[in-house]
């Protein structure tokens, strides 16, 4: 009895340092972040990234205990021997010209590419089954992926994770451009997150705001990464990314100010309890530049500076795990305010109503010095009713010239003199102070050639109809009413006939 007790004590002592030794890092971890970038065109881009890292060798051991890493995807990796999986569903197009370079762009529709392990014997079979299973998980029509839209790239799409040899016969790539993204794809994507949509950054993921955007892209990326700096073993990394671009004009009523509540109709209350990091980054690069005074509210406790995509950028960091950030008001609503009125201070647009009123567009613009500002409007040509054309439609239709009213700063300040005393050419426009003068300029009228129908068509139609009627009806009439007689064929050529004509003229019997 005593011996047993002593043995038990010994065993406990041995286990002691093992169990309560130095703090072992957890086997899986979650990091979530949101990056908000005001774009040059006035829109706002928000990129969510949720990264779950799992220190496990899925291939070697039969795993059955899943914590943060979703079981649906973990079973997928082990069943189909995947090395990498990248699936994206996108609606819209990233306009690089107006918005700058994206972090991660995706093609419109659905894109799926995967690298299989070297141990897979029939890659095409596994690819087909994989796309069927994914179509069930994400409620997308990925089962339409087959040999007609799958390719094996030979030089591009190298593995984004760890790789020990790149034999491209284990790579498959397919795109479905017709695929639609909607709430039914967002719902299972959200359910893969450890905190679902209950806590942390994922509370902002509301479908009715996320789909009211110019660009919406959600993606799932699975790849093996180095577990530590020595990189002797492999961890699996699952990244779920969601990028949206909010159209500031439509959703912000023309003002460039935005806030989390205005974009997502929610604010952040608490970090996800399962996350080891939960941060919001706001791009404030343009706040340090000249004449741009914007402020981010609440003021950030830390900033982050680095060279991103080739340029140096500054980010305001809000760490949700830091108690000071969320403490005061129990909710975090990041707001961006412009201290001065922004350049496009006023826009008034009245669209045209057919045959009732024309388009009207008025804008108040502040022009930067030593620069050229171009304003362009796209329009489409429509077809008019045939009675609405002028007698000379090929001349074209006129668009009235635009009016530019400007206050130009004077080089030399003028004295505002008496109205009656100054000569007439100086008193056309009333001036309040002499530092700038008013001028009104006009552009040229625009002559637009509209597609004109062929007005001679009725004439052609009448001719054609009459010909057809004459040929058909006339032939039938002749067939029915004329009688036919057999005539002796005339022998002889042209010369003989000519001779007969002359003979007949002379009154001599023919040959």
């Amino acid at each position, binding site marked *: 009895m005593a011996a047993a007790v002593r043995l038990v004590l010994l065993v406990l002592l041995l286990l002691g340092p093992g169990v309560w030794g130095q703090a072992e890092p957890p086997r899986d971890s979650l990091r979530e972040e949101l990056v908000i970038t005001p774009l040059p065109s006035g829109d706002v881009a928000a990129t969510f990234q949720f990264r779950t890292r799992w220190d496990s060798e899925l291939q070697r051991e039969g795993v059955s205990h899943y914590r943060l890493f979703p079981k649906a995807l973990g079973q997928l990796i082990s069943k189909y021997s995947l090395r990498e999986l990248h699936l994206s569903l996108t609606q819209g197009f990233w306009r690089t010209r107006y918005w700058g370079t994206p972090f991660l762009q995706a093609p419109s529709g659905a894109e799926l590419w995967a690298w299989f392990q070297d141990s897979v014997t029939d890659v095409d079979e596994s690819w087909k089954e994989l796309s069927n*299973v994914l179509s069930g998980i994400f409620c997308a029509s990925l089962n*339409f992926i087959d040999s007609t839209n799958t390719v094996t790239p030979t030089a591009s799409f190298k593995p*984004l994770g760890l790789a*020990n040899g790149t034999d491209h016969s284990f790579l498959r790539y397919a795109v479905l451009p017709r695929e639609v993204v*909607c*709430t039914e794809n967002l*719902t299972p994507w959200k359910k893969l997150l450890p905190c679902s949509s209950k806590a942390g950054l994922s509370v902002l993921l509301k479908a009715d705001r996320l789909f*009211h955007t110019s660009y919406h892209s959600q993606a799932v990326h699975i790849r093996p990464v180095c577990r530590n700096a020595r990189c002797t073993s492999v961890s699996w990394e699952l990244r779920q990314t969601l990028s949206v671009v909010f159209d500031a004009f439509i959703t912000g009523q023309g003002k460039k100010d935005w806030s989390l509540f205005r974009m997502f109709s929610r604010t952040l209350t608490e970090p996800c309890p399962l996350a080891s990091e939960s941060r919001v980054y706001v791009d404030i690069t343009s706040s340090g530049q000249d004449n741009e005074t914007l402020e981010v509210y609440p003021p950030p406790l830390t900033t982050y500076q680095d060279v991103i995509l080739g340029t140096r950028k500054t980010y305001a960091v809000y760490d949700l795990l830091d108690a000071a950030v969320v403490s005061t008001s129990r909710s975090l609503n990041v707001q961006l305010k412009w201290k001065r009125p922004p350049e496009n201070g006023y826009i008034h647009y009245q669209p045209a109503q057919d045959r009732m009123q024309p388009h009207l567009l008025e804008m108040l613009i502040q022009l930067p010095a030593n620069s050229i500002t171009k304003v362009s409007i796209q329009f489409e040509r429509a077809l008019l009713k045939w009675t609405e054309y002028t007698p000379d439609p090929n001349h074209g239709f006129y668009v009235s010239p635009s009016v530019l009213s400007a206050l130009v700063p004077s080089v030399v300040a003028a004295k505002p003199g008496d109205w009656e005393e100054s000569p007439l050419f100086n008193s056309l426009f009333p001036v309040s102070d002499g530092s700038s003068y008013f001028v009104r300029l006009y552009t040229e009228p625009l002559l637009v050639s509209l597609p004109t129908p062929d007005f001679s068509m009725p004439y052609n139609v009448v001719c054609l109809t009459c010909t057809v009627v004459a040929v058909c009806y006339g032939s039938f009439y002749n067939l029915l009413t004329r009688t036919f007689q057999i005539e002796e064929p005339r022998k002889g050529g042209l010369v003989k006939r000519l001779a007969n004509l002359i003979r007949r003229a002379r009154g001599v019997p023919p040959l």
Partner: protein
Amino acid sequence: MVDTYFLSQGLTTLAGLLLLPFGSLAASQIEDQAEQFFRSGHTNNWAVLVCTSRFWFNYRHVANTLSVYRSVKRLGIPDSHIVLMLADDMACNPRNPKPATVYSHKNMELNVYGDDVEVDYRSYEVTVENFLRVLTGRIPSSTPRSKRLLSDDRSNILIYMTGHGGNGFLKFQDSEEITNIELADAFEQMWQKRRYNELLFIIDTCQGASMYERFYSPNIMALASSQVGEDSLSHQPDPAVGVHLMDRYTFYVLEFLEEINPASQTNMNDLFQVCPKSLCVSTPGHRTDLFQRDPKNVLITDFFGSVRKVEITTETLSLQPDSGVIESSYKKDQMVEDLMEPLKYAEQLPVAQIIHQKPKLKDWHPPGGFILGLWALIIMVFFKTYGIKHMKFIF
């Protein structure tokens, strides 16, 4: 002795007499319990909701299907037991002024699309073939579980179909049709394979009653929004969205279902009265001759709700974290990793390697008929012009 004997016998008869009424009371109680046990013989519920119309102006059909989906989910059937087929996407359609929403009532009162929706078959996948495969279970093996109807012989299935239809057929996506005979045969296949216990079939199309005329399998109850020769009409347009939002019959069915909760005792006879001719303009019809139970004994929740066996307990269970398992296997990994050499990431654009890649040899195909004919023509013209004597110089 004799009197005690008679007394005891009297007592026993008295006891017997007293026991008799008790016995009959107990027997009737048991009978009640037994009747309740046999009242609804199903153990699980499934729903197959199909919208067969494509294009923006058929918004109302998608709204019809989604409102039934919403009611069915609210009354307890989980997504894993619902097969939802929508032939077109209205919520994220570029013409929708409020994206990610599908409204059933003007003034945007009720968003039937919601935030938690799983569409199993969408867009081009909604075809007659896929619908019949779902019903009969003859599905390719690679189909995921969410797209299958995994019902058994104790399942009550609700099948709701909406779209454009005619006398004896229902149009799928403007390109194909399913006839009432095909549908009846599919249900007979389901009966023979014991894939349902009871089936409720609801259809909201023009001349919908023609679709259930040909059913011949037992335990099917059918409802339709209009008789043969009548059109089902839509309810109301919305000026903001620009199209009609719902059909009349389903609108009133939705109103009726909004008042049902999982514990309500409303029966099928109330559902038959839902849309009288004054409200619906068409005459809704129903068919119950194949159904074994009396409709007044059939609860709405038998088909629209779900059977859930829930046991409520008041004792708490505390879960211990099993850190022992995790720690020991982590140690094993650490030992192995020290032996392997470091791994590295692949280079994304190895220009030198790509340039010197050998391209795959394309397979040689013999020239086609056109090329051969063209060459034959050229050669014929050449020899006709210059004579056959040149041939020996060529060959």
